[in-house]
């Protein structure tokens, strides 16, 4: 799927991930690099899921996907054996129970900036849902509508990370 600015005849560039709504629909904004005219693509839950099922990321991936990332993040009721994956050092993951919970949480309506999404992607896949949830809880407490890199820094300071 591509977008062209009809005024400039320029291909539009991905600008902002508007985040997931509770029903699984999402918004993604594209902008013309010449005139900065923007268009927001509103994607229904099935279309969102179709993209997720391809194992790709809207807005691009900044780091390679982790092994078994799609299965780990999309299987609704994985075995404990799968949840208790080991890290490269062979240590048992201490966050497995939280990750397990997070598999079934409903998506939030907070927006994530592109930079914030990219920073989140740097976290290992099996702790990413927990980190996302923690930051979103912090943002809600503070009354933020959008999660930016600055909000992430504030959340980290609050969590003592």
């Amino acid at each position, binding site marked *: 799927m591509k977008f062209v600015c009809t005024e400039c005849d320029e291909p539009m560039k991905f600008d902002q991930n508007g985040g997931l709504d509770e029903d699984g629909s999402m918004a993604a904004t594209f902008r013309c690099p010449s005139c900065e005219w923007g268009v927001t693509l509103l994607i229904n839950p099935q279309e969102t899921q179709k993209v997720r*099922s391809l*194992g790709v990321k809207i807005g691009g991936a900044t780091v390679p996907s982790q092994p078994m*990332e799609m299965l780990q993040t999309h299987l609704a009721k994985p075995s404990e054996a799968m949840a208790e994956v080991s890290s490269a050092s*062979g240590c048992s993951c201490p966050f497995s129970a939280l990750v397990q919970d997070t598999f079934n949480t409903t998506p939030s309506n907070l927006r994530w900036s592109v930079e914030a999404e990219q920073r989140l992607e740097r976290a290992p896949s099996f702790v990413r849902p927990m980190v996302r949830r923690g930051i979103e809880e912090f943002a809600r407490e503070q009354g933020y509508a959008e999660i930016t890199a600055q909000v992430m820094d504030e959340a980290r300071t609050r969590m003592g990370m």
Partner: protein
Amino acid sequence: MPKRYRDIAGDGGSNVAGQVAEQMARLKARMAGVKYTVAVMSGKGGVGKSTITTNLATFFAMQGWRVGVVDADINGPSLAKMFGVRGHQLRLDSSGVLPAIGPLGVQLISMDLFLAEDKTPVVWDGPTAETFLWRGTMEMHTLREFLSDVQWGTLDILLIDLPPGADRMSTMRDLLPDLHGTVVVTIPSAVSQLVVLKSITLARDLLHTPVIGLVENMTSYVCPTCEEVHPLFGQASTDDMPLGVPLLGRIPFDPRMAAAGDQGTPYVLEYGASPAGQALLQMGERVRTFLETVHEEPARSPVS
């Protein structure tokens, strides 16, 4: 005239094509350590395809081959049970997940190893309505992760046990364009053979995948008392079908085969001398001959 789709390079920043290419490159790199990839398929369900896969894998392991098996039946996985590895604790590190190890060192990955309980079906996190729109794609990419994200190491053969139906063969061809061959399983019933004919046509003529041959399972029944052989499904032999592929074997029915599967012990390990065991081992020899003849790879020494 305004720009059209093909006039624009890239997709505005998501680089979906690049992300898919990265997935396929990872798959190709993993498969570089595998000498032969062979799919086991059928037209109809219930013909004993997983039993054939289990015993074919065990035959190769008995020959000293390093063997991996992918249970590609995402929604009805059975091979973890048949190899006796249910409940195996999966381990994952940055290189991928370690497969379960069955009898004679056969490596296995199956959806069964990822599910919480016996009664747990495969349920994906996503919208509950109109799941047909994305479920097939999710299953295809699960299969891709089974191939690319498991630490197979160096294998002589990777067997892929496909679910019933011909559709998954197209998926396999997309994921593994260099598939070395396909073993097709049927039973001597006209209904099964009608469907298997379509599967063979798809694999051989449309997807251009080498069909190693046909296995006719449950051909006959050996009376345990008098050891006389009786037909099990009447006389609908594949001899009468215009299949045009070699016959790899006719496997007689033996109730102990089902029991062996339930116990997680491959049948040929326990009953290799029985008529069904002999037929299964001969089937394995024919598959091996095909691979080594067509692909000219040296044989290994049998396990003593």
